Structure formats: structure tokens, C-alpha cells
């Protein structure tokens, strides 16, 4: 027996299968009918279908073998504009066959590109616009430079609603012959914050653990998103720097987290109501967390930066008598 990840298995293949983002899908279907698309920017939170819709669109345009007409790049993985330039150049050079007169460059997570790289990208878009169309996806459209935005048709994807997510999860449960409590599916929706990918991942992991109940759902999410971060924060605030540092090291080994992963999760944690600390302390910690994140991005060493952060927590913890 072999088993697909459901995120792959239940991914819509065609625009017709896409259940939400109705207005966007309608307009895209018109493009397909006209056999022409503009450059596009798909903006919206994670797990709302940006990449899926791009693939479905390409599928509808070119048919089953659409991937040969599409260059898929990911800005998070290929940060060097040089790499992107070379690949686009090569891809654009080859002739277009078939009835559609252009090929598609899908550049995922384009908001991870520096503005310099985006400037270079803009020139690429102009240079090859005769036979290529660019589809960019981004979580934050504001991080895409204006000249690119103005060259693109911008589509805003919104977080999925409960009415979209729960029925879809129910459909999956039926298809997989699973017992799923309605309440459990609602909890999945709440925990995934309108992110379909995450909702499906939680569902599949819960199913692997047994019957999908509220309890199991919470357990899965707890396992996947470690609490150690909170424990580390609490240890540091209690003045136990050495133990906190040990925890940090464990986290980085067990979960393979990078310094950035850790500080981002810390940032989420400090505003969690489960962490009982004074409100003004939250703000002070957030401020220093931001500074540390900035230093990490500047190319500094993960552990040293986070140790500085933990040492700061130990000091603040004492001042605030946490």
C-alpha cells in the first residue's frame, strides 16, 4: 500500500475544481477562453490557493502536460537573481509549440526577493514579454515594488472561510472512510486560521493517530508545533539562563530550527495569553526580538544572537519579578 500526502492528493487540478476564490477563478477562466493572460500577481496569506490556482490555470491552458510550458521558480529557494535570470533566459529562448503563443514563468514567494532583485526581475519581464507571462505569488503585496505591481494584474486571495474549509475536510473524510467529528473539523479550521494546506495536514496527521476527535487534533498540533519554545522563554524569564540555553540547543537539534524560525516562534509566543507576563514586558521583549531578528538577517550567528536574547529575558525577568 502506498499513500499520498493529502495536500497533494486533494489539490484541485483544474480551475473548475477550485472551490473558493470564486471571482478570481471566474476571471481566470475568461483568460483561458481567450487563450491569453497578462502578467499576474497572486497575493494573499499562505494556504489560500495561489500556487494551486496558477497550476490549475496552466493545466486548463495547455492540458495534462502543462508543466513543460511552465517554469516554476521559488524565490525563497533561489535567492540569487543571477540564477533566476539564467533559468528564465534559457526557458524563454526555446520555441513555443502548441496553440497558446506564450509560456508561463511561475515565480513563487516573490516577496522574498530584495528590491534590487525585483528591479532585475522587472527588466526580465519586459525583455521576454513577447513569449512569456509571469505569474508571481506573494504573501505581502506591499513587499512587491510598484513597477512590478503596475505591470501585473493583481489578484487578492483571501483566507478561507469556515464554510469552505469544513465541507472540504468532510469530503476528504468521506473519501478516506474516516470517522470525523464535526466539532473536530471546526477545531482544525480554527487552528489553521484559514490556511487550507495546514488544515489538510492536521487532518491527515490526526487520522494517522486514530479517530479524528477534538482531543487528537489538539494533540497533533501540539506535537507539530513544539511547546519547548514557551518553556525556553519561561526558563529564561525565571533567571535560569543555562537551562534556557540548553533548551534552545535541544530545539535546534531536534526540530532542526534555524535561528530565524526560533525568533519568529518566540515572537508569536510572547503575545500568547498562555504566557502570563505583564503587558509592558511583552512589548519590551518584542522590541528586542525584532532587533535580534534584524541581526540574524544581517548574517550573524544563530546561537550567539539567541543567547543574547535569552540573557536579556533573564535580566528583564528579574526586573519585572516574573
Amino acid at each position, binding site marked *: *500500500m*502506498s*499513500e*499520498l*500526502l493529502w*495536500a*497533494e492528493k486533494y*489539490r484541485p487540478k483544474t480551475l473548475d475544481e477550485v472551490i473558493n476564490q470564486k471571482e478570481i477563478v471566474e476571471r481566470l477562466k475568461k483568460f483561458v477562453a481567450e487563450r491569453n493572460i497578462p502578467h499576474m500577481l497572486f497575493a494573499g496569506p*499562505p*494556504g489560500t490557493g495561489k*500556487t*494551486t490556482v496558477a*497550476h490549475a490555470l496552466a493545466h486548463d491552458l495547455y492540458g495534462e502536460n502543462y508543466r513543460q510550458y511552465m517554469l*516554476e521558480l*521559488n*524565490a*525563497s*529557494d533561489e535567492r540569487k537573481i543571477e540564477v533566476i535570470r539564467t533559468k528564465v533566459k534559457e526557458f524563454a529562448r526555446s520555441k513555443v509549440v502548441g496553440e497558446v503563443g506564450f509560456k508561463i514563468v511561475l515565480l*513563487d*514567494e516573490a516577496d522574498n526577493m530584495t528590491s534590487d532583485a525585483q528591479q532585475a526581475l522587472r527588466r526580465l519581464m519586459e525583455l521576454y514579454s513577447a513569449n512569456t507571462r509571469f505569474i508571481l505569488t506573494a504573501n505581502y503585496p506591499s513587499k512587491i515594488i510598484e513597477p512590478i505591481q503596475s505591470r501585473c494584474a493583481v489578484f487578492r486571495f483571501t483566507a478561507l472561510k469556515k464554510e469552505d474549509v469544513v465541507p472540504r475536510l468532510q469530503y476528504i473524510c468521506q473519501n478516506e472512510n474516516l470517522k470525523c467529528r464535526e466539532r473536530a473539523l471546526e477545531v482544525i479550521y480554527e487552528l489553521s486560521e484559514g490556511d487550507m*494546506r*495546514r488544515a489538510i*495536514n*492536521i487532518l*491527515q*496527521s490526526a487520522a*494517522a*493517530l486514530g479517530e479524528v476527535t477534538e482531543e487528537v487534533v489538539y494533540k*497533533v498540533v501540539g*506535537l*507539530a*508545533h513544539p511547546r519547548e519554545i514557551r518553556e525556553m522563554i519561561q526558563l529564561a524569564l525565571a*533567571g535560569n*539562563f*543555562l537551562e534556557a*540555553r540548553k533548551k534552545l*540547543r535541544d530545539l*535546534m*537539534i*531536534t*526540530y*532542526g530550527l*534555524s535561528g530565524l*524560525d526560533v525568533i519568529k516562534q518566540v515572537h508569536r509566543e510572547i503575545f500568547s495569553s498562555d504566557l502570563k507576563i505583564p503587558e509592558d514586558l511583552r512589548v519590551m521583549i518584542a522590541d528586542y526580538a525584532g532587533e*535580534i531578528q534584524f*541581526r540574524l538577517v*544581517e*548574517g*550573524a*550567528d544563530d*546561537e*550567539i*544572537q539567541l*543567547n*543574547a536574547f535569552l*540573557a*536579556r529575558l*533573564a*535580566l528583564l525577568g*528579574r526586573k519585572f519579578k516574573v
Partner: protein
Amino acid sequence: MSMRNLPWIIKYRPKHIDEVVNQEEAKQKLIAWLKSWETGKPQKKAVLLHGPAGCGKTSLVEAIAKTYGYEIFEMNASDSRRKEDIERLAKTASQTSALRGKKKIILLDEVDGLDPRADMGGVEALVEVIKNTRNPIIMTANNPYREHLKPLRDLAEVIAMNRLKETDVVKVLQKICSAEKIECEQEALREIAKRSEGDLRSAINDLQAAVIDGRVTLQSVKAVSTYRDRVYAPWEALRKLFSAQYVFQAKDAVTSTDLDPEEMKTWINEHIPTWYDNPEEVWRAYEALSRADVYFGRIVKTQNWDLLSYALDMMGPGVAFARKQYKGKFVAFKMPERIRILSETKKSREYREALAEYFASRLLTSKATVKAEFIPYLRVIFTNNPKYAAAIAREYKLPEELITWLAGPRAKEVLSYLKKPVK
């Protein structure tokens, strides 16, 4: 600092030439050369005294000076790039000692520390100083045979010092033990001597670090980790750093080891909380190290090496003067745990990276998203439901080592399901 808290390497420096062990030849040559100054005309105006780290070069010079009534005018050669230092040196060297004043020896420590590129003028300036000196000049070096030191070798009488023998080291250690009234296991002293590889300084430091409740045992010696082939052992540099009284000492401390700045960073990172116990000091020290680290990051990014000096400022003096109050103390600086951890996190990250690579294209997403959104759930499945995990592994043709990493303690179960024939 009272005599009691003095590092033993200072406390037990030889005070008389007779106390210097196992360097007869060097001693004789040096004394003869010094006598030739007193009788008027030395053949060579400088001596280049060389030998491995910790064999007692500086101690020998100090002992000779004490024995024959000289005053030492000391300069670290690596400082001599500064124009005013050279001028000061030249002036001191060219003046004969005052009639009633003490005779002078000019000691230039670590001339092999002169950077051939950065201190282009350094060697030449020293050559001039030697030509014009009216006082004996002694230079020390670990390695006198570096290319750019040739002009100095030509001008000076080159005197070699021996690496100390284990038995000599043991003898010195024994003397210290009885002076300190410490109970020392003979085999412990031999172990220290063996590890020191003739480096008496590190041996004495090891001895002091290994004292537990007035005793030195083989076990306590083995607990004190030692690094060799260094100008200063890392923990020695740390001690220099944390107990620095002046900025220059702190800066020296971080540059006087053979550790590269990356390694030095790791040692300091490990031991800030070993040395400091007040939370404010801990944070101030980490903040300084963190700033140093940012400079290093910028240097790597921009290749702007001018920034190195700032990085070292923060890493050395920044960390040393994080203290609110100076406290002399003696702590053992062990090998950073992080060196082990780094290799483990590295492995862990490599596995995650490989997994991300595996899944990214199938799942139409970035490696970053695979890492953040899929791997945590895969781990849940792999560590909780081996049979189901095996089915996923089969579908995605995951290699065994990635399965092993994902499933952790349940890897065997997953793999055995995977090996069962598919019906």
C-alpha cells in the same frame, strides 16, 4: 590581586637564571652575548630567541635580567606597526642608560606576529632600530623562519630553545605542588606533562585548573580539556580576556590564540555564563558578543575587512568590560559543548534540507514551506503510526536515512513495514 590569587604561571616564573630548566645551551649563549655588551663590542646587537610556545622564552629573558641587574623595556612586536611606538622604541634603544640608572634590555616579544602584508614597514623599521641601538635587544619568536623575518635573522644571533622534556615539566609541577601544599598524584602530573607537549606554561595552567579541594588527581586532570598547537590555549585566552584590566589586554586576548575568530566566538559564547553570574553582566557580555557577531556577518557579506577591528573590539573589550565590578577568580573553561551540538544540528538540518528537496516539487511549493508546514506533520505521522508512515515513504520513495530521521525511535518499525511485500 593578592599573591594567593595570582595565576601560577606568573607566581612561579623563575626569579634566577638557575631556576630555568633544561635550556643550558641557550642560557650559555645568551649570557655570553650579554657579557659581550658589558665589555664593549658585541658581534651582533640583537638576539632572536626562538622555540615552541611555553618553552620559557620570556621567562628566560626575565630571569637573566633579574640575575644580572637589567631592567626590561618590553614591547609586543605586533604593536610596533604604530609609528609612535616605533619612534618611542628607537629613542629608548638609542639612549645609553643613565649612569646611575639600571642597564636596559629591550625585549621584543613575538616578532613572528608581524604581519608580512599589514606591517610592510614593520620589519624594516626594526632593522633600523637594531642597527642604531645602544642597548641589547632580544626578540622572541615561535617560528623565526618565516620568509619576511629574514632581515632580522641576518642581523641577530639566532638562539634556539628546546622543547621541554616530560620529566622536566613534571619536576617543575612537583615543586609548585609542594609550594602550594597540594596533594598531587604522580600519574596526574605525568598526564599533564604528556598533554603539554613541552609547553610548560600550559602545563602549569592545567595544574592550577585541575586542583579540586586541594588535590590533583588523574581524573581531575582529564576533566580539564586542553588544546595544543596554539599560541595560547583557548581557555588561557579566555582567562586573559575575562580578567583583563585594560582594553588592550582584552583585545590581545582574543587575537593571541591560533583560534580563528569563529572559534574564539564559540569559546566566548560558551563561557560568558561560566564567568559571569550576575544577569546584567551576562546580558551585557552577550550583547557585546552579538554586536561583534553582526560585524563578522557584515565582513563576510561585504568583504570589508576594515570592520574586523570593530568586531574584535566588541568581542574582546566589549565582553571583558561587561562586568559591573572586577572579581578575580579561577574557573575552568571547558571545551564548548556547542562544537558537538553544531555538528548535530548540522546533520539535522541536512536531513531537513534533503527532505524539503524531496517534497518541494511534488507538493508544488518551496523548500521553506515544506520545512515549516509539512515536515512537522510528517514527524507526527512517522513517530506515531509506522504502518501509515511506511505507506507514505513508499509513495514518495523516501531513502532509508530520511525515514530513520523522521521516525526517530520508531524507525525500525517503519522500515520493517516497508520491507513487507506489497499485496
